[in-house]
């Protein structure tokens, strides 16, 4: 499975992209995040507050109970801060 990280999730985890083989018992996004957190302290710290983690599967937002497929592109990122910058 191809996994992408953006913004501070990327800088905390230290990489922007990796290919991971998920164990069979990991089926939902939520289970995937639990499993990912056990891969090391940087993952654990980056994923500890789930309220600021958004997940897209194949470039569409999904809820945490979404079921993953082996060929999915999974992206983890903080809530978007919007594009437009200059105005209130």
């Amino acid at each position: 499975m191809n996994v992408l990280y953006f913004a501070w999730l990327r800088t905390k985890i230290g990489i922007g992209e990796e290919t991971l083989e998920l164990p069979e018992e990991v089926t939902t996004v939520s289970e995937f995040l639990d499993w990912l957190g056990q891969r090391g302290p940087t993952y654990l710290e980056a994923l500890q507050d789930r309220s600021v983690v958004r997940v897209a599967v194949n470039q569409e937002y999904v809820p945490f109970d979404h079921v993953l497929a082996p060929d999915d592109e999974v992206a983890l990122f903080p809530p978007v801060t919007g594009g437009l910058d200059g105005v209130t």
Partner: protein
Amino acid sequence: MIRVQQGKFDVGAEIAEVCEGDFAVGGIASFVGVVRDTGSGPSGFMTLEHYPGMTERKLADIEQQARARWDLANVLIVHRYGKLAVGEQIVLVITASAHRDAALESCHFLIDWLKTDAPFWKYEEDGQTGGWVGARESDDEAKLKWRD
């Protein structure tokens, strides 16, 4: 039409092109967003990160929503990413229509969406320190006004 690019855009040329040869278009509304000075002084800058592929999908989707809601001859959204200095143009929205209300309202709608939902993340630097910008709640309220 949507474009996500690193380079600058030419507002005048884009406006001219958006209704080139379409004589039913009477009005072209546009909005240009500029990187502001967030207290770091005019020498600060900002890096806009995005999710290539998903960004384009989301922008194309909001363009379709605007076209479904207003009678528009053309729509152009150009959004830049990468490192941008204070004062640089960052986003351009152009809406062309035979009706001025349609052009101006749809431009406003797209800008409100871009401000809140465009899949970008901002990293601000003032030369010494830098940090990721958090989401803003007041912008979400602005978006609610477009709900039917």
